[in-house]
């Protein structure tokens, strides 16, 4: 982030959206230069916070449509540079928030997405890799052919294309990689060529390359969007794709632009599991 903010969050306690607002504010303040304005203490420490608000552009983060933070800013006649409302962010990212007061997977994903957008809104020119902190969980089904075991994750968030690439979709972000079929066929993977951070990729466009002594495989993106992160570890340790192409061997993260449309040309676990079995049979048939 180039410019530092004075951040006025609602700091909500009794609603999930408020807890998210607070989390985002704290994480932004852990980054250099940003300053926090406490919405409660502001009422008694006006001089201190007026100074902070006067020295930095003001970012107001409201949790819910009650907009406590915005009201406070208006009451203090502060000029708002940027305002976000968490419930609206959740809606735009198609993330359903829980009714609990503790942040769960969906809420943490939204925190990461909003942080990413805030940071990039200030730094369009800089190309940075923002790997999400989202936890990815995989529930595998497998089958064996000879000595080879093929695993396919059955989670409903994971989609496949018939080019043997997968996308784990959370909100407007997808982590992508290749399936066991690719890594078993290539055998020992020796090189990984990542896509460029910031590259705009079309669905079924090339999104990196992996190479073994047997052949080169072009990764075909299951989704359309912008590359926001790549698995840099693979450049030094491409063998991680052999070890586990879904977890340590993931390839890139894509900020989705039109997943609803992409989805129409993707398949779920049931269909892909049948396809991979058929491919393996045909290869060995």
């Amino acid at each position, binding site marked *: 982030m180039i410019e530092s903010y004075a951040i006025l*969050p*609602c*700091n*909500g*306690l*009794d*609603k999930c959206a*408020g807890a998210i607002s*607070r989390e985002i*504010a*704290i*994480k932004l*303040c*852990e980054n250099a230069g940003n300053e*926090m304005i*406490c*919405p*409660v*203490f502001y*009422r*008694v420490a006006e001089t201190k916070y007026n100074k902070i608000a006067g020295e930095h552009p003001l970012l107001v983060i409201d949790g819910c449509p*009650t907009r*406590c*933070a915005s*009201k*406070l800013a208006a009451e203090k006649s502060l000029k708002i540079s940027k305002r976000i409302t968490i419930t609206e962010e959740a809606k735009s990212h198609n993330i359903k928030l829980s009714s*609990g*007061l*503790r942040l769960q997977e969906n809420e943490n994903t939204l925190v990461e997405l909003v942080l990413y957008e805030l940071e990039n809104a200030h730094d369009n020119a800089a190309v940075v890799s923002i790997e999400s902190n989202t936890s990815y969980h995989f529930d595998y089904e497998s089958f064996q052919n000879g000595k080879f075991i093929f695993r396919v994750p059955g989670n409903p968030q994971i989609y496949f294309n018939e080019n043997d690439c997968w996308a784990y979709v959370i909100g407007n972000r997808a982590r992508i990689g290749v399936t066991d079929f690719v890594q078993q066929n290539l055998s020992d993977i020796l090189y990984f060529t990542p896509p460029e951070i910031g590259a705009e990729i079309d669905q079924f466009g090339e999104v990196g390359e992996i190479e073994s002594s047997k052949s080169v495989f072009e990764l075909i993106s299951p989704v359309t969007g912008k590359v926001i992160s790549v698995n840099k570890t693979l450049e030094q340790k491409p063998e991680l794709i052999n070890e586990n192409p879904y977890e340590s061997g993931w390839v890139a993260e894509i900020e989705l632009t039109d997943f609803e449309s992409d989805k129409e040309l993707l398949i779920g676990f049931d269909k892909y599991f049948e396809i991979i079995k058929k491919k393996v049979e045909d290869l060995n048939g």
Partner: protein
Amino acid sequence: MDKKIKVIPCSGIGKVFGLLARESVLKTVLELCPEKSETICLAYIVSGDEAVNEKIAKTRCITVDGCPKMCASKNVALAGGIVIEEIKVLDTVKEHKGKNFGSATHLDADGEVVVNEIAEKIAIIINEIN
């Protein structure tokens, strides 16, 4: 009068003692006394919104403050709540001198101990009242 006791922590954003206050309250209302207590956002209370003023006026409240500024206690009283107990996080912290409680975003094991102690104190008060 609303039966549920309101347990309200300070805003405490950006400081470990504020996080201790907040986590103690969440443990109380979510785990120890979910039937007898609930929390209300202090930032909402100080906004002066009529709906929240109505909810808190003449209602029994326990406030939990992270620092001597006592934002929670003062503002709940200003909003018309009946503060039946003022909990000060620092009173419990002082019993754990030299320990590392964590940061504004994460509690270490000693921080969890303090949270549990404060939450249990609040739960005892709530149960005695009921």
